[in-house]
């Protein structure tokens, strides 16, 4: 990628900031249910 | 025709089923004593029969829906800031009974005149329980559902409760009650173990 691209016309902080936080939130929404599911399954097995 | 009947009741607390497919018939003039270990679901069953709690399955019916029923739980239903008389006047207003009977009811439960005017928070547990029992006398209703009514009652209170209950049964009413104590002498109850 050309260095020009990363500068985003001088708005690098805002554009990459937005996309970074967005990536974080999309990932959280994918991962958090899985972690909770593992925790639930463990509590279910403890109840056995 | 039973005064109160319940068919295939299933009662749940959270996701635990306390009772499953439970049937009950309460005939006129009958005293039913519900026994069972703590946490077995006695109170939940009574609350469901009283219509406070919705059963997970099955339903319960009153012979005379209009007359309704009297419910006495662990909590007396008395506001502690107000006096016994004010509380009973409030319940007369709610149930559409005439306030004239308040003094007679309080005399019926042998609550001393001085205590009737003091704020309920200054009454003893037994006196509060008697005031709660007085509410049952304010308005005649066929079915009484009583959860541990004997709590806090002294010897005099127990005898008084026996007399009130027998009078109610004699008039064709029915009582379903729970109690971990043995019932006072003259009362003969059908036992039901949960």
């Amino acid at each position: 990628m050309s260095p020009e691209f990363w500068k985003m016309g001088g708005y690098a902080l805002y554009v990459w900031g937005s996309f970074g936080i967005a990536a974080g939130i999309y990932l959280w929404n994918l991962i958090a249910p899985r972690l909770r599911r593992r925790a639930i399954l463990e509590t279910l097995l403890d109840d056995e | 025709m039973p005064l109160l009947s319940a068919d295939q009741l299933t009662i749940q607390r959270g996701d635990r089923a306390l009772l499953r497919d439970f049937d009950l018939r309460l005939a006129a003039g009958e005293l039913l004593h519900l026994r069972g270990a703590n946490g077995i679901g006695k109170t939940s069953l009574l609350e469901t029969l009283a219509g406070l709690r919705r059963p997970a399955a099955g339903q319960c019916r009153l012979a005379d829906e209009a007359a309704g029923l009297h419910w006495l739980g662990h909590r007396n239903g008395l506001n502690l800031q107000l006096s016994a008389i004010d509380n009973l006047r409030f319940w007369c207003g709610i149930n559409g009974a005439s306030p004239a009977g308040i003094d007679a009811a309080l005399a019926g439960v042998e609550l001393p005149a001085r205590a009737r005017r003091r704020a309920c928070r200054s009454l003893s547990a037994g006196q509060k329980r008697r005031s709660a029992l007085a509410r049952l006398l304010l308005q005649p209703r066929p079915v009484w559902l009583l959860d541990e009514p004997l709590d806090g009652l002294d010897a005099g209170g127990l005898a008084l409760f026996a007399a009130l209950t027998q009078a109610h049964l004699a008039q064709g009413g029915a009582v379903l009650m729970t109690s971990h104590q043995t019932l006072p002498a003259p009362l003969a109850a059908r036992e039901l173990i949960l």
Partner: protein
Amino acid sequence: MNWTWFHRLGSPPSFYRFAGRLAPWLGGLGLLLLAYGWYAGLVLAPPDYQQKDAFRIIYVHVPAAAVSLSLYVLMALAGAVALIWRMKLAEAVMVATAPVGASFTALALVTGMLWGKPMWGAYWVWDARLTAELVLLFLYCGVIGLNAAFDDARAGARACALLAIVGLVNVPIVHFSVEWWNSLHQGSTILKFGKPAISADMAWPLYAGLLATYCLCGHAILRRAQNELLLRERNTRWVRELATELGGGARVS
């Protein structure tokens, strides 16, 4: 129109399997669309003549804002179904939607602020849409907080359903009152941010991003609804079998 499929879907075990089959597809499709959307948005789309490259924030802000509102509507509707027909499934979907909706509302707010700095010169401008988004976030937090305060899951879900319904009635009122409140504010923003004229190659990434976000939200909600069902049905046979079968290895089925 026979309702058997509705009742069959309504029974937790069959919904659990249905969600288990559908969620991976939604997740995969969502990620693909998102990849295309962001790549096209960042690289292919030409810079805006006015805002140059800062306008690319639209590709994360608009999908998040759109989803934040529609998920609230979904949550309130699921709540209404849970209240009226006392369906465990509807409660699970409602409780599942709340955190997903809240996260995207927060995303819409943050990206709105990051977009505001280059455009309006300040991170926080009491713009009608941003303020309404903020109130929406409070509504979401209220529902999540209320649900967390209950020990009994079913009573908690019904309380949240009531709150969500009142909140839903409140959303348009908030939008309107904030619009009115903004108009009263004489000196309006320096550069009233209008909808930029979107050329085709700017629009495709936006639609892709929007669809991707809906798919990924669907995925997250289905997964969370599965978790809620596991919790609510933990004493039933099918959950015990499932738990032992998975042996706690959390292999996603």
